[in-house]
């Protein structure tokens, strides 16, 4: 076993950490979040310059040859800072759709544009009725000349409000919840027939409900064959969210520890109360368990056996969800009233952690999935 990073990976981790330290104080974050698109264009450019946007893609596709570990390191740092830029939406989700679902030619066309920061994509896969079932797709794609026409409603499209282009999961055949018959389609976000309803999210980001009415799109990959690719996209997304959650949890634990040392009541630092020491120690236990599962998730994304991969990812998401809930709630409790204020970072970490649990299946959902299958152990 080896938990060591390569020199290139260390460099990425250091670079992102430094950038976050310099540019992502909580006050700066408030300013970035107030922009119409909800993030900093300037930082997006800097991510491109640092090579973060191309890092996880293969060199032959125009990326820099990294993968899940690079995403993990970046997301962990973003999680600590509560970074708002659409890295997850564009690089992890839409980029994942390209990696797993597009042809070599399409990848070579689009990935360099992502890597340079010129193209911000969003992935529109969920629908109002789909819950966490990625295969529940009513939106249809019908052949029209050399392209397709999309009709239907997409929901909760992360950063779908400001993306220039959308990758849309739509059905070319089969029934509403069939795994087969799905395709990925590329469309300009302001193409005729596309209507976006943008809104802010609980965790200070942006998303959109998007409807398609005969909107003209082009296919990516082989229409009808996108189901297995989507499953992998979501697995990669869960691994990325696990890392972001670990960053946010680590930050919450640090803030709490610092607060316990400095907040005085009854003439002493509240950290001198054993009840609070033990609670904080339990938070550390929850964090370390989550961190281990973050590694498992990142490593599992390249596992070739689909069932094993799915189990590991579910196990990671369940642990992340449970740890995130415990740490979010207890960090709030140990801070007292100050944690309840919008001005203070902790509440925003708690909200982000909550929304990560609510993405792609909460802890119960993944535990139920695991409960139906084989043991995690041989």
């Amino acid at each position, binding site marked *: 076993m080896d938990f060591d990073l390569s020199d290139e990976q260390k460099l990425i981790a250091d670079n992102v950490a430094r950038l976050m330290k310099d540019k992502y104080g909580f006050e700066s974050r408030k300013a970035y979040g107030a922009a119409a698109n909800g993030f900093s264009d300037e930082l997006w450019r800097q991510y491109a310059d640092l090579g973060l946007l191309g890092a996880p893609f293969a060199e032959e596709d125009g990326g820099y040859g990294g993968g899940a570990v690079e995403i993990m390191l970046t997301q962990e740092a973003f999680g600590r800072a509560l970074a708002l830029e659409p890295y997850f939406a564009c690089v992890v989700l839409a980029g994942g759709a390209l990696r797993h679902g597009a042809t070599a030619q399409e990848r070579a066309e689009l990935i360099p544009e992502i890597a340079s920061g010129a193209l911000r994509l969003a992935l529109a896969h*969920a629908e*109002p*009725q*789909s*819950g*966490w*079932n990625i295969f*529940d797709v009513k939106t249809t794609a019908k052949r029209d000349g050399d392209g397709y026409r999309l009709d239907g409603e997409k*929901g*909760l499209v992360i950063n779908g409000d400001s993306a220039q282009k959308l990758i849309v999961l739509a059905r070319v055949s089969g029934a509403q*919840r069939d795994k087969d018959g799905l395709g990925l389609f590329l469309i300009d976000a302001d193409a005729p027939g596309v209507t976006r*309803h943008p*809104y*802010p*999210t*609980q*965790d*200070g980001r942006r*998303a959109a*409900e998007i409807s398609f009415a005969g909107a003209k799109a082009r296919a990516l990959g082989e229409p009808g064959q996108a189901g297995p690719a989507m499953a992998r996209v979501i697995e990669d997304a869960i691994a990325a969210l696990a890392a972001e959650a670990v960053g946010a949890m680590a930050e919450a634990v640090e803030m709490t520890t610092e607060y316990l040392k400095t907040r*005085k*009541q*009854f*003439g002493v630092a509240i950290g001198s*109360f054993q*009840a*609070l020491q033990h609670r904080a120690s339990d938070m550390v236990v929850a964090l370390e368990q989550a961190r281990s599962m973050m590694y498992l998730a990142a490593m599992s994304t390249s596992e070739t056996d689909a069932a094993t991969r799915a189990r590991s990812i579910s196990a990671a998401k369940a642990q992340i969800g449970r740890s995130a809930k415990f740490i979010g*709630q207890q960090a*709030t*409790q140990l801070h*007292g*009233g100050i*944690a*309840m*204020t*919008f*001005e203070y970072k902790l*509440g*925003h970490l*708690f*909200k982000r952690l*909550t*929304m990560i649990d*609510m*993405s792609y299946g*909460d802890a*119960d959902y993944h*535990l*139920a999935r695991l409960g139906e299958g084989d043991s995690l152990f041989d």
Partner: protein
Amino acid sequence: MDLGFSAEEIAFRAEVRDFVAKNLPAAIHDKLAGGHHPSKDDIVTWTRILAAKGWGAPHWPVEWGGTGWDAIKLSIFTDEIQRGHAPESLAFGTSMVGPVIATFGTQAQKERFLPRILDLRDWWCQGFSEPGAGSDLAGLRTKAERDGDVWVINGQKTWTTLAQYADWIFVLARTDSSVKKQEGISFFLCDMKTPGVTVRPIQTIDGGHEVNEVFFDNVRIPAENLVGEVNKGWDYAKFLLSNERNGIARVGVSKARLAKIRRLASLGVYGDKPKMDDPVFRMKLAAAEVELKALEMTQMRVIAAGRTAPKGKPNPMSSVLKIKGSELQQTTTELLMDVVGPYALPYQPEQGDRWNEPSVGPDWASTIAPTYFNTRKVSIYGGSNEIQRSIIAKAILGL
């Protein structure tokens, strides 16, 4: 032993329920049932409806407008108000400062303030906590100094709930720094319009505005607005906090939320089955109901014991009610998160009277996550759950 309610109590419950159903304006009911906050007007409107019926402050002495109901009836009343999605009466007036004035105030103070609390002509807020004095309330530093026939107050209060609407604030301030900290505190009544009082809003994590900072800069208040004796304020504060006990468990709130959970979980929002068909969810819901049933019984036991206990002596069992009651309020908000699932995500802040506008996702979804976040407060305020555990350890276990 008889665990049932008497015929009279059952009839009383039906009477209150019926009154709420017939008299609570539908717009207020729908807003609160949807998980939205009542506006100032909503609370005033409903309080006046209750006051007209003689139910403005049922637990007060009869001569000041109370009902003379026993503790069981009072608890049934609170339970039905909470269950019926009616605004609760403004506790700062009816449950906090009202009883303090009625017990320790002068005749003039009683005549001046109590009738105006009853029908909410005066909106009160609670000026206890300070930036440096939370759990350690007796460590407060706001000062009051005598200057002829006025008291001059300087200092800062914080977390002051709904001070933005308040006409009056009751304030604990230090009047003697040379003695043990509990023995140098006095209890004052202060008109919010007095020069030198400034209110600054604090936004809460759910985006709402319910708490404030209140600054006192050479605020001069007439000597007649001191309650009781100088330097006895801590005793009155303890009396006030022990009165908070009625309804501290908020069983009715959790009952109403459980009913709402059942209703929403049966709707079938995602996939081909309603959430209610999910066995894991059903077990979690059942577990919450079991705990709430037990809590309701525990509350009744505490109330029954209170009928024979010496008056004014705090019962440490109320800490059991506070801990479990707050936990259940939080558990039920988590169950709602289970029901709303991914559509917890859109942030659609309340917009005053426009609360009823079309929303993203199911039309009941927008309040679920904010309520979950906001409800973390219930284990922090009213004596944090850690402080309650310390009380149990000391006062029940003798540790």
